[in-house]
């Protein structure tokens, strides 16, 4: 036991005193922050798209102007919904505030109505966020009256005479012509941007709404009738049948964003597990390869058995990865506290409750232990067969491809955890630690959890046994990667050969 402890301690100290460990600790949060910043930056830096309309008359231009005002109101309402969710406002109160917002005639009145309903339930830090959302699109007067004249503006050779920096450019032009026998106009959308469909979709919806209203008016409906029809909103509310049995009243059975949190937390945990397993497994391989190439294994073997060395290394590097996870956990807790103080108490609390769910944590811990032992022992055994980086890379490449599979599957599993092929893949032992975690939030049956744990236990046992054989062969008999197949193949036939020493 003492040998195992000493080897584990040396492994642990060797890694935690290396720069790579500290880089790994800060890499994940840095990438997380960068990802958030880039996402936020992309959302906030979306410029106001200027467009011009060429129309004989102004009937449809007025329709689009009205839609622009409504778009700002809709965007503002979405933002208020997000604020309500993040701040932890009760769902019924948020719904009442939303109805008051909808009923108000303009954006300022709508904001005031929302504020009146919510009252002082909203944290003071979020009061300043209660303002109209910025406009996404802006209609400008066409600098030319034909598409030929507008072409230089659309392709950036000319800019508009006034407006903001981005507004200086003409993003798109809409050519509207009356079409005989048709209620709506014939529309041509001109833009050099072929990838962002937002403005085109907005204009399309605005013209469709205008044409619908015109059609209803032609059918004899009054203005009030048409407004009433426009306010008809059939909202489908989702309910989770699994919660009925638990909750007992329909109000708390309704599905909200909080119900989706376990899936997101499960996905994050899977990614963290994957990063940790890959990081430490790679560390193990490189460490053993260094010991073999530096001939340290021979010295170690006179003081400890191959089994003790194998277990000591696995334990030492497991401690390294636990330190990593603990560091990331502390950072996440710090970030959560900071976010809560900034008005995201509701979402932070929900996320924390989900993450600290004993069942999910139990599955995460199980997945981590078995995943680590499976992949760790595999990489350690491979390291004992390698003396150079090239040898290690040639052995690692196929394993890395295999390890990429859970990441790809995770994307599908988030929206369709019940897909048959995902269920089947989760029973393939090398994927089980990851996919079990991905599927857990959708609700795994007890027999599935027990079955997967048993499967991982057996697979890990077999993997450790095989790793022990290969490690002994690599360390004691100095077999290399090229001998691996021969070694495993001949074990049941005849003794493997190795280079005799002097």
């Amino acid at each position, binding site marked *: 036991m003492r040998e195992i402890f000493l080897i584990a301690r040396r492994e642990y100290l*060797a890694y935690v005193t290396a720069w790579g460990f500290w880089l790994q600790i800060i890499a994940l949060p840095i990438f997380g922050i960068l990802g958030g910043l880039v996402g936020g930056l992309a959302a906030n830096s979306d410029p106001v798209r200027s467009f011009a309309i060429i129309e004989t008359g102004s009937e449809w231009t007025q329709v689009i102007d009205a839609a622009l005002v409504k778009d700002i109101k809709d965007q503002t309402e979405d933002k208020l919904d997000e604020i309500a969710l993040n701040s932890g406002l009760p769902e019924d109160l948020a719904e009442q505030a939303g109805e008051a917002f909808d009923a108000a005639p303009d954006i300022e009145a709508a904001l005031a109505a929302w504020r009146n309903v919510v009252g002082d339930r909203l944290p003071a830090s979020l009061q300043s966020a209660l303002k109209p959302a910025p406009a996404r699109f802006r209609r400008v007067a066409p600098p030319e009256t034909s598409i030929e004249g507008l072409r230089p503006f659309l392709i950036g050779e000319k800019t508009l005479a006034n407006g903001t920096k981005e507004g200086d450019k003409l993003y798109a032009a809409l050519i509207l012509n009356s079409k005989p026998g048709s209620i709506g106009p014939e529309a041509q959308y001109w833009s050099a941007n072929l990838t962002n469909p937002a403005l085109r979709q907005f204009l399309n919806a605005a013209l469709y709404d205008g044409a619908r209203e015109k059609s209803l008016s032609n059918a004899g409906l009054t203005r009030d009738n048409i407004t009433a029809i426009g306010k008809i909103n059939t909202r489908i509310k989702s309910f989770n049948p699994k919660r009925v049995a638990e909750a007992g009243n329909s109000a708390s059975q309704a599905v909200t964003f909080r119900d989706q949190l376990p899936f997101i937390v499960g996905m994050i945990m899977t990614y963290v597990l994957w990063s940790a397993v890959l990081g430490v497994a790679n560390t193990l391989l490189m460490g053993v390869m260094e010991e073999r190439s530096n*001939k*340290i294994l021979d*010295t170690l073997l006179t003081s400890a058995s191959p089994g003790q060395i194998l277990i000591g290394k696995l334990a030492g590097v497991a401690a390294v990865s636990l330190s990593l996870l603990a560091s990331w956990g502390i950072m996440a807790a710090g970030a959560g506290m900071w976010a809560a103080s900034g008005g995201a108490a509701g979402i932070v609390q929900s996320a924390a409750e989900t993450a600290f769910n004993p069942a999910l944590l139990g599955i995460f811990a199980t997945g981590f232990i078995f995943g680590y032992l499976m992949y760790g022992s595999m990489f350690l055994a491979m390291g004992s067969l390698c003396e150079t980086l090239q040898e290690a890379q040639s052995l690692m490449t196929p394993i890395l491809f295999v390890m990429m599979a859970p990441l790809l599957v995770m994307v599908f599993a988030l929206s369709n955890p019940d897909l048959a092929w995902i269920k089947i893949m989760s029973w393939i032992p090398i994927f089980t630690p990851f996919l079990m975690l991905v599927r857990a939030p959708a609700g795994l049956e007890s027999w599935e959890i027990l079955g997967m744990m048993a499967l991982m236990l057996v697979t890990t046992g077999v993997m450790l046994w095989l790793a022990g054989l290969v490690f002994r062969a690599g360390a004691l008999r100095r077999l290399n990667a090229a001998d691996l197949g021969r070694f495993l193949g001949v074990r049941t036939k005849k003794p493997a*050969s190795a280079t*005799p*020493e002097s």
Partner: protein
Amino acid sequence: MDPVLSFDQVSKSYGGAPAVRELSFSVAPGTVCGFLGPNGAGKSTSLRMIAGIHAPDAGTIRLLGAPPNHKTLKRIGFLPEERGLYKKMRADAAIAYFGALKGLSGADARKRARELLEAGGLGAHRRKLVKTLSKGMAQKVQILAAIAHDPEFVILDEPFSGLDPVNQKSFEEIVRDLRARGRTVLFSTHVMEHAERLCDSIVLIAKGRKVFEGGVEEALALAPRSALVETDAGFDLAGILTTRNFSLRGAILSVAEQNLQRAEIVLETDSDSRRLLAALVEAQAPLRLFEPRKPHLHDVFVRLVGENATPAG
């Protein structure tokens, strides 16, 4: 006293190729034993079997009164032929680590590491990383790591290879010190002078088999004696040697610029030296030099293993 180590009909092969064949020898306590043989003789395989890294296919090894096992291996120190240390570890930490693996407590291992480095002249380098040490220093650190737990029996596989003369001398001192403290040492070497200077006994193997075991003096007695003779040029040295039944080792060498001739003459017995000198005097040979030569282990090696065998690891 029971031997510290004994091999009894030990054999080991790899994939059908024998590395060690029915090898039997023993090492007495408190002695320094040289383990000599040409390349591929089976020395490293034998030493790795003693260190418990390999198990013999046949025969028995007894180490400190028992087969090599966890307990007995804790009482030995082993320096493998192919050496290496953790490059990013400090010199004192490396010695303390291997000392602790052999059973020393953490505090004792650190104390012992400091003492050994001071005694070995590396006190000033004890906090340096292994990768910053010279090759000689790193090898010294490794042998100190092998003896950190003050083992009863020390096995050194080619301890002098790759060392400069100063460090070789320093290593010899370490071996002498071990013997002076009553420890037993078994080492393989391809430098016969080291074996001659340090060993009480030697075991010589070739092609996996033992060809000699015994004391150094006993080994030297097996070596052919000779005498170096120089006379003025023109003297019929060859004729005298032929008529008196002496044989030459090599040919008579003529050194024209000094006007002399030189020959090495084989002496079959100790009395041959006196008989040769008497014959030369009687023939009134113009002697410039008559030097009976002391036999060396290299000569024993060549005689027992053959001219073509390289005395290496």
